[in-house]
């Protein structure tokens, strides 16, 4: 079945620095969704895209489904970006089973 690996598992930044988070998956996917989870909170969808690059605010997601990888770039990090970032590949038209990576825990200090 689908396996999802995220790296790094944790990342510590100074405010203003950029972050690059990686997501690799083992089986076919037609799109990749990135989520944010605040400490003790629920998951919020950040970006969802098939192959290609998608931007929203300071976030850029680049997904290459043929190579089974995606990255999330956070520019000019802020303390409020601290939390856990998770990715989940989805194969629309195939199984609805949705498996998550274990996440990258981001800590941004001022």
């Amino acid at each position, binding site marked *: 079945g689908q396996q999802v690996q995220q790296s790094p598992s944790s990342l510590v930044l100074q405010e203003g620095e950029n972050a690059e988070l990686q997501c690799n998956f083992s089986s076919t996917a037609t*799109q990749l969704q990135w*989520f944010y989870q605040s400490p003790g909170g629920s*998951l919020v969808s950040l970006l969802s895209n098939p192959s290609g690059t998608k931007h929203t605010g300071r976030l850029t997601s680049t997904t290459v489904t043929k190579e089974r990888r995606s990255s999330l770039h956070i520019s000019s990090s802020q303390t409020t970006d601290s939390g856990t970032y998770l990715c*989940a590949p989805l194969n*629309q038209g195939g199984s609805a089973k*949705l*498996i998550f*990576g274990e996440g990258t825990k981001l800590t941004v200090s001022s």
Partner: protein
Amino acid sequence: EAAVTQSPRNKVAVTGGKVTLSCNQTNNHNNMYWYRQDTGHGLRLIHYSYGAGSTEKGDIPDGYKASRPSQENFSLILELATPSQTSVYFCASGDGVVFFGKGTRLTVV
């Protein structure tokens, strides 16, 4: 934005008792999911559903049943709750982009 509502938000249950966690979505999504989240394990899929009447086993279904009586509702049932099922449970729905509920904190004593 799509809404997924979980109830209860907090629950304390006794070992051996029956627990039902409820999830409702009004987005007309076909796919719904139940996950548990524990420190050190991330989000693990318990059961999911393709639509009313369907339930599928996820990666950790043992000790859990699921029920999808309608498009809107998806329940997770613990027939005989055990302390190892103490966790935070999340429901989600979505047919492409997925949306999550706020979670249910279950403590089995």
